[in-house]
């Protein structure tokens, strides 16, 4: 009895630091943000209670809808390609490709870089000055095939990848480059836990590598794949750094994502209540998307 009580106290003793930090830095600010979302506040004067006015304004705000659309582009275009590539690379490495260790490290490498450093790196690669390697290649292509890419009398010119009007689509390759390694390692870990006997039996039965992938590998890592989708939804909804860096801290209607609108509302327009409403909507959207995705994963779970 005494030991049980002591163990209970020990549990609280061990959990207390994390609980205190979570309460102070996540739960309480979250509740405060929820309260702000029902207020009109510029950050300097007394807040005024306005009920659901911020949420009503948000739903009619073209800027927020455009930002949401940009988040969906990153989520769908970036997510689809990233997860497919990660699956392909993980599967290839799992089946014993030569130099697998090198590829694993090379693909995972972008994950150890800071998000801002990655954004600056890609900004330089996209640069329309002599520094930009991608535009240097593009100019060479224009010179080599003028009849295809240039109008009469036109001279080769760089493409403004990081111009606000193209920025979101230009971020997709960066996102893929950055994220593929992480998901590849996630899927690879799941693949490596599949018993080898399944593949041996399938090989004896004459199954091709492609059949083995679709009938053994993918069904058995499906849950991890769903977790990957959830991770991607959350990270795409919270996407901020690259847009902020590449837009020199002032995105506009062409390049905003939800978090940059949130930042702009607080720190450029001093509309804290409205920004808090965005944060609440962002939370709800991510929560719903995660619930739906997890709901899929609970169906037909295979155990081995």
């Amino acid at each position, binding site marked *: 009895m005494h030991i049980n009580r*002591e*163990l209970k*106290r*020990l549990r609280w*003793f061990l959990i207390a630091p994390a609980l205190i930090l979570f309460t102070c830095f996540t739960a309480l600010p979250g509740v405060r943000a929820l309260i702000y979302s029902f207020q009109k506040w*510029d*950050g*300097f*004067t007394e807040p005024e209670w306005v009920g659901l006015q911020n949420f009503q304004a948000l739903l009619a705000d073209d*800027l927020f809808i455009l930002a949401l659309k940009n988040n969906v582009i990153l989520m769908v275009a970036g997510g689809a390609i990233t997860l497919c590539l990660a699956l392909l690379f993980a599967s290839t490495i799992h089946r014993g490709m030569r130099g697998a260790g090198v590829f694993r490290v090379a693909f995972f490498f972008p994950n150890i870089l800071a998000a801002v450093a990655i954004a600056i790196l890609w900004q330089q690669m*996209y*640069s*329309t*000055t*002599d520094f930009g390697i991608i*535009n240097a290649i593009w100019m060479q292509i224009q010179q080599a095939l003028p009849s295809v890419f240039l109008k009469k009398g036109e001279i080769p*010119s*760089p*493409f*403004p*990848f*990081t*111009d*606000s*009007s193209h920025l979101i689509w230009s971020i997709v390759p960066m996102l893929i480059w950055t994220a593929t390694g992480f998901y590849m390692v996630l899927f690879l870990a799941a693949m490596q836990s599949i018993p080898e006997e399944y593949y041996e039996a399938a090989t004896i039965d004459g199954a091709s590598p492609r059949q083995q992938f679709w009938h053994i590998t993918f069904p058995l890592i499906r849950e991890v794949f769903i977790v990957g989708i959830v991770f991607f939804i959350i990270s795409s909804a919270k996407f901020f750094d690259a847009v902020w860096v590449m*837009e*020199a801290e*002032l995105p*506009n*209607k*062409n390049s905003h994502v939800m978090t940059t609108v949130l930042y*702009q509302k607080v*720190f*450029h*327009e*001093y*509309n804290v209540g409205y920004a808090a409403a965005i944060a609440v909507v962002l939370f709800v959207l991510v929560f719903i998307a995660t619930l739906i995705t997890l709901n899929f994963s609970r169906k037909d779970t295979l155990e081995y």
Partner: protein
Amino acid sequence: MSRAISHCILPTYVQSVYNTIMFRYVFSIFLSFSIILVLAFYSDAIHRINDTAQEIKVVEVAIFKGAFGIEWHQQMAEQFNRENKHRNIKIELWGDPKLANILKPRLLRGNPPDLILDERLPLWLLIAADKLLPLNAPLAEPALGFEQQKWADRYSPGMLNMFKSNGNVYAVPAAFGAWTCWYNASLYKAKGWEIPKTWDEYIDLCEKIKQSGMVPIALQGKNSYFYAWSTYITLVQRIGGVEAINRINALEPNSFSHPDALKAAQVFQNLVANYYQPGALAMTHTEAQLQFIQGNTAMIFCGVWLENEMRETIPADFELRSFDIPGSPEWKGNDKMVHGQGMEFLFVPKAAKHPGIAFEFARYLVSPQHAPGMSRSIGAISPLREVNSPENFSPAIASVVDIVNDSSGAFNVRPYMLFPAWKSQVMDAAIQDLCRGTLTPEEFARTLDDGIAHEVATAERAIPDAVLLNPSDYGELHAH
């Protein structure tokens, strides 16, 4: 010792956890940090007690660390401290490039520095929220180094208008910024290119540059809301005169759709389409400026901070010079007017602990006595009258000083200061769209006008009256 502590204060189960090597290691580190923290707090407390015992008034001054740096300001603070040692006054001056972001929570908590230099903070919002002190009292004091006149009277005309409300001046500029066109004089000499006197000559020059295989103009496209906008506004004045500027500042409906402002948008769009560097809209301001410095373009529109900002990259044989954006005899505006304004604004929060000393230091910093030193040290043009001698500046800034000294006056527009949401949601995207040709000049003007009308209609606080310029004072005729 730590083992003894554990025996005394910890229960049995915790002791067993403690006795593991890892936990002991972590606990020792934690204990060491705690001791260091306690000592740090203690020494800080002793320091504060000492300051209090001697009744030293520590005045905190926060400076935006931009192209002008903060070294000169720090020298001034040290000099002020030395001169006022007997009064037990101590200026503690610091700076940061992200000053506005650092200070926002402090302003909110009511614990701001005593004196702030950074107009990137929402000054109009702070004025409306009664968070700033008026500077009328120090402005009525004698100017340091020119005691016969009040500090206010030493300011060049119009310099105190930007943050004036109900007769009170809430922020004073520490420098003057002029918007001009920069070029490399040695390149122009070598190529035989002349400085244009009229807009037609300017376009001819652009053509000559283009024919020589160079790109005429670089644009800081990522910061169009400032760099492209400023050139467009200069053209509004050149084409429509100060009346066009007055219409914008008075927030008159359809002021951007007025034929003069519309023509400025057309002229600017043609300039961008024909003579700006391809891909410029994807360039940051430093990238574009480097293109100019490296000789990939022949001109760039910029403020006076260009030389300071690009100092490390300017080659020895590069003669950086400036000329004012020309007008045309067919246009209404006086082309001797400079698109310029006060910049590096100083203000004192209402919650300042030592407002009197803050006022005094502001007057010390922006004084006829110290203006030549500021010019020599950081190349900033003073907003005060008769203190900007070209010999105090580098040849590059001296060329701007010549323009300013030769000018009939200065003008600027204010909606982007009044309406942060209009600036970030409407103006920035609209000027970029005008540059890339996805908006016609008419659509551009309509977008700006609709945005202003929305801001005026939904304004929750009284909008301060504009200080309007009289066209006849600048040799311009009233439109009929």
